[in-house]
């Protein structure tokens, strides 16, 4: 038995998830086996934009082993049209009408058109090849220019154009004045390229409709079971109580697996039609082509600056490519606008944006969806530094806010309470020794070697400071149920849905500490809508605060309730109760301790305790985030660019980060490194590429969509900045998304620094070797 005198919070406690992960006994959605289960595959559009003029499934239906073939029209009749998962993010935006599978037209390569259900995936794919769909090609709308062209074919006829929304110019502060008194204006057109989540596990679902009970059970890989449940219930026109969503182990998501996807709804409807379970496991081509993509934005930026490097004002125009079916893209500019000042003293800001629709996969959430604000700002700061021949670190130090001094708020409104950006910059400066690096850089250049140093600073709302309207970040307060069992263990029911975040460990650490039992006596239950509290699930870098906080307060509340019950049994006062070594006693009388389990049993026995304490020894807790707070930090990278091949080697990567009090340092550092790895991948390797003429998706296999391997990601040095506690108890902040937000600009800044002798100005985030040689002029830009 573990020694419960030690404190778990703050220690790198070994994960309780690992025994099953390491022995291959976890249960991912592709591992679910139900009697009579059938297998689904989709016929998908080979064309980016076309009208469907005919669908012939006769031959497919005849293939032995095929149980059903459902066309878009047939599924449309079995389901309710709706925005699906995108509905979460689309309040107030124009919403086109579209069916679960394509009926009138296809709007991207990979758009699902027909569902085949067969005895095996092999047979289902055979049958898919027998389906004949007639397409009348339409011009593909692929580039922003094509989408903005009013003469272009509207992808959704009922919207009339491919401009989803144009937001009017928003201004903060005196923008005109700032530009009028500026010593200089630095301008840039910055491009953030499309790339995507790519978890190692693709999407998947097993839908099982029971004809007898009229209940739908869904096994899903999803970040939030309740949101998925609502999606299924809505689009199948079923009462919520008849839908149960379960999730077991999930092989990563990073924002992809939210809500009920169109394919999920199709499988659920088919299961209801057939009365049999249907499994759909997305394959990697489907995942890369059609599941959704992210980060497709371009910016025109002007910075009004003083000769001392102060940023007097910014003008920002943003265009975001939201893809075909509605996703997150339409509302994202709001988040970018709000965050773009970051932890800096920006004097004024004007911001306008346009969201366009194109024949591409939907723009979805990907680990820090608003990250382009940091990309734009941190790139501009380096361009400003270049303009003034100043060190980028110095420009940052001159503009970053200092805690306790004005401004106490971001220009766009949010409080900057507790921000430690300056401290993180100072720490990175101490770790890097910029002057020494500049000497080394100069020596290397003399030998024809190109080293570069880049750094970047960010903050993220994890969950963000308390707002006047209440805390909890954008997804509301967090609930948790905690129950003492008759065997003396504590069961924690959380709406969190971990998919790599290790909540079954971290939340147990906190609950164990606050309740007073060993870590292995706490069991965290996730992923069952019948049992876990309502809530968003996991995402948005909020769980450390929200779930950590409700775990802390809930465990205390459970302890108090246990003491109340025990007090009755001891005929003493709750204040006199003590808990040690798994038993409760009157303080000072340890010999007459009662094991925890017996206390729980007593509460079940009629008459032993007052009515209001009878029953399960359980509390339901809710937490609104308390004072909340920011996470953030500064990253730095030292790179070497091989100017003969364009390859980039990262010599050193450093992180100085503040994510509040660490629940489990190893887990925190794992999140940071994983995020940074994705950021490195974005710059050097990953691009969701479309042919601009045909709209064909070019990155549809792992030979073309490249994610980094162990040879591309360096050791990452991590220093934790001492956090500013804002709350009496809960100062854990989220850390899931930060690495991915800040790594791309860090690396781009380093690459530009390495190539500055060639006068390279980096305005795009994707810098594969070919592009680097084009930028330095070593090769021509081919047409």
């Amino acid at each position: 038995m573990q020694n419960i005198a030690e404190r778990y919070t703050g220690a790198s406690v070994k994960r309780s998830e690992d025994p099953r992960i390491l022995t291959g006994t976890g249960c991912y959605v592709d591992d679910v086996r139900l009697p009579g289960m059938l297998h689904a595959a989709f016929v998908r559009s080979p064309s980016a934009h076309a009208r469907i003029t005919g669908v012939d499934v006769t031959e497919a239906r005849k293939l032995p082993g095929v149980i059903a073939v459902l066309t878009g029209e047939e599924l449309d009749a079995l389901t309710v049209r709706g925005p699906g998962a995108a509905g979460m993010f689309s309040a107030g935006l124009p919403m086109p009408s579209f069916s679960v599978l394509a009926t009138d037209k296809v709007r991207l390569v990979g758009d699902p058109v027909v569902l085949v259900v067969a005895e095996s995936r092999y047979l289902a794919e055979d049958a898919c090849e027998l389906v004949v769909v007639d397409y009348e090609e339409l011009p593909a709308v692929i580039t922003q220019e094509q989408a903005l062209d009013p003469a272009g074919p509207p992808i959704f006829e009922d919207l009339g154009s491919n401009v989803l929304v144009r937001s009017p110019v928003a201004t903060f502060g005196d923008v005109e004045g700032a530009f009028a008194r500026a010593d200089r204006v630095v301008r840039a057109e910055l491009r953030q390229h499309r790339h995507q989540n790519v978890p190692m596990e693709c999407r998947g679902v097993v839908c099982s409709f029971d004809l007898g009970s009229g209940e739908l059970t869904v096994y899903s890989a999803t970040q939030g079971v309740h949101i998925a449940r609502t999606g299924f219930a809505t689009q199948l026109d079923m009462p919520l109580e008849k839908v149960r969503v379960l999730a077991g182990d999930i092989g990563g998501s990073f924002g992809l697996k939210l809500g009920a996807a169109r394919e999920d709804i199709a499988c659920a409807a088919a299961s209801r039609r057939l009365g049999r379970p249907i499994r759909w496991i997305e394959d990697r081509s489907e995942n890369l082509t059609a599941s959704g993509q992210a980060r497709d934005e371009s910016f025109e930026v002007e910075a009004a600056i003083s000769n001392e490097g102060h940023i007097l004002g910014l003008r920002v125009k943003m265009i975001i490519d939201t893809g075909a079916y509605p996703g997150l893209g339409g509302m994202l500019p709001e988040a970018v606008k709000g965050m773009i000042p970051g932890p800096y003293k920006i004097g004024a800001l004007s911001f306008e944006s346009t969201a366009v629709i194109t024949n591409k996969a939907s723009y979805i959430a990907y680990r820090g969806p608003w990250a382009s604000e940091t990309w734009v700002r941190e790139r501009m700061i380096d361009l400003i530094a270049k303009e003034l021949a100043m060190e980028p670190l110095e420009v940052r130090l001159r503009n970053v806010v200092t805690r306790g001094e004005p401004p106490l708020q971001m220009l766009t409104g949010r409080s900057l309470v507790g921000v430690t950006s300056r401290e993180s910059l100072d720490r990175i400066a101490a770790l890097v020794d910029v002057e020494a690096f500049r000497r080394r850089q100069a020596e290397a250049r003399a030998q024809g070697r190109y080293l570069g140093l880049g750094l970047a600073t960010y903050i993220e709302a994890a969950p963000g400071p308390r707002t006047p309207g209440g805390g909890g970040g954008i997804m509301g307060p967090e609930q948790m149920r905690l129950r003492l069992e008759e065997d003396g263990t504590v069961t924690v029911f959380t709406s969190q849905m971990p998919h790599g975040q290790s909540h079954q460990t971290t939340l147990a650490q906190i609950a164990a500490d606050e309740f007073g039992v060993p870590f292995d006596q706490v069991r965290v239950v996730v992923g069952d809508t019948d049992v876990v509290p309502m809530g968003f699930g996991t995402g948005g870098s909020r769980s450390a605060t929200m779930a950590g906080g409700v775990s802390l307060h809930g465990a205390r509340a459970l302890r108090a309730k246990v003491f109340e019950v025990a007090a009755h049994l001891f005929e003493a006062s709750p204040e006199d109760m003590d808990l040690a070594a798994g038993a409760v006693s009157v303080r000072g009388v340890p010999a007459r301790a009662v094991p925890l389990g017996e206390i729980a049993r007593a509460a079940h026995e009629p008459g032993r305790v007052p009515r209001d304490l009878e029953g399960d020894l359980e509390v339901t807790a809710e937490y609104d985030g308390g004072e909340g707070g920011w996470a953030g930090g500064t990253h730095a990278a030292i790179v070497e660019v091989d100017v003969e091949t364009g390859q980039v080697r990262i010599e050193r990567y450093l992180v100085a980060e503040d994510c509040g009090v660490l629940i489990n340092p190893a887990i925190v550092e794992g999140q940071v490194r994983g995020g940074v790895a994705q950021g490195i991948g974005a710059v050097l390797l990953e691009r969701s590429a479309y042919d601009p003429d045909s709209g064909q998706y070019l990155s549809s296999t792992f030979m073309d969509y490249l994610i980094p391997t162990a040879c591309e990601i360096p050791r990452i040095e991590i220093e934790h900045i001492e956090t500013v506690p804002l709350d009496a108890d809960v100062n854990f902040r989220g850390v899931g998304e930060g690495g991915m937000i800040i790594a791309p600009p860090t690396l781009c800044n380093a690459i530009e620094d390495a190539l500055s002798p060639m006068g390279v100005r980096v305005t795009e985030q994707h810098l594969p070797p070919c592009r680097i040689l084009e930028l330095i002029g070593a090769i021509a830009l081919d047409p």
Partner: protein
Amino acid sequence: MKPPPFDYSAPTTLDEALALLLEHGEDARPLAGGQSLVPLLSFRLARPSHLVDLAGISELGSIVVDDGHLVIGAMVRERAAERHDDVRLLAPLLAQALPLIGHPAIRSRGTIGGSLAHADPAAELPAVALLLDAELVAQSRDRGKRTIKAADFFSGFFTTALQPDEILTEVRIRRPALRTGSAIEEVARRHGDFAMVGAAAMVRLEDGKIADARVALTGVSDIPVRATEAEAILEGAEPTDEAFATAAEEAAKSLSPPADLHGSSSYRRHLATVLMRRTFKLAAQRAKEAA
């Protein structure tokens, strides 16, 4: 991503295998290591009606030394060749190339013959075979054995001189002459990926001058190519950096490499220049050390 249906045989002799290929015609294909063929099946880009698995034919699985030639059976796994002493001694360029092929899990199954017969323009082994003037032995039931020079073997994009009823049985590599050094280098997006461009070079020195220089390039065409202009310029020349640079630049002028998501045509031409220069230099250095 599941393969379409096909039939399968697992012969234990070469004669059986050849008879099966003849019997099932053009839609039958030999199955070697499967590291290239199985993904094509999974993508449904290849749709053979019948696979003839060569793994059970023990006579295809050995490495022997025969009269100064290294003879590698077509079904020798790349990993086995990598570990084999005779390969290191008698075909150092091959030994240098093998670890560049994919990853250990690929090489444990992938075969020497399979890679050559698949003829991926980005693959290392076809370029090595071309550079070493390897002899590839093919056999059919009706026409027996024939020896095909590497220069004649690779005819086009994923196309070789093999007839549909032929199986590649072995590759013969002559041991290098004295005072020869070799080098292979490639530029890939990630470690273990197919090269965007690769160069394999050999240099033989005599009296401090280059008696023979050769270089083969991958990724610049639909087949591996010998950069003969470079080879001609270097014959008899001093092994200097300038000579290698000049040779590489001249040879690159005649290249029209393909463009794709990973690199433009200009980029590949540029890489070819860089890699020819680097591999010539390293090969010459090794030739000096071998003396």
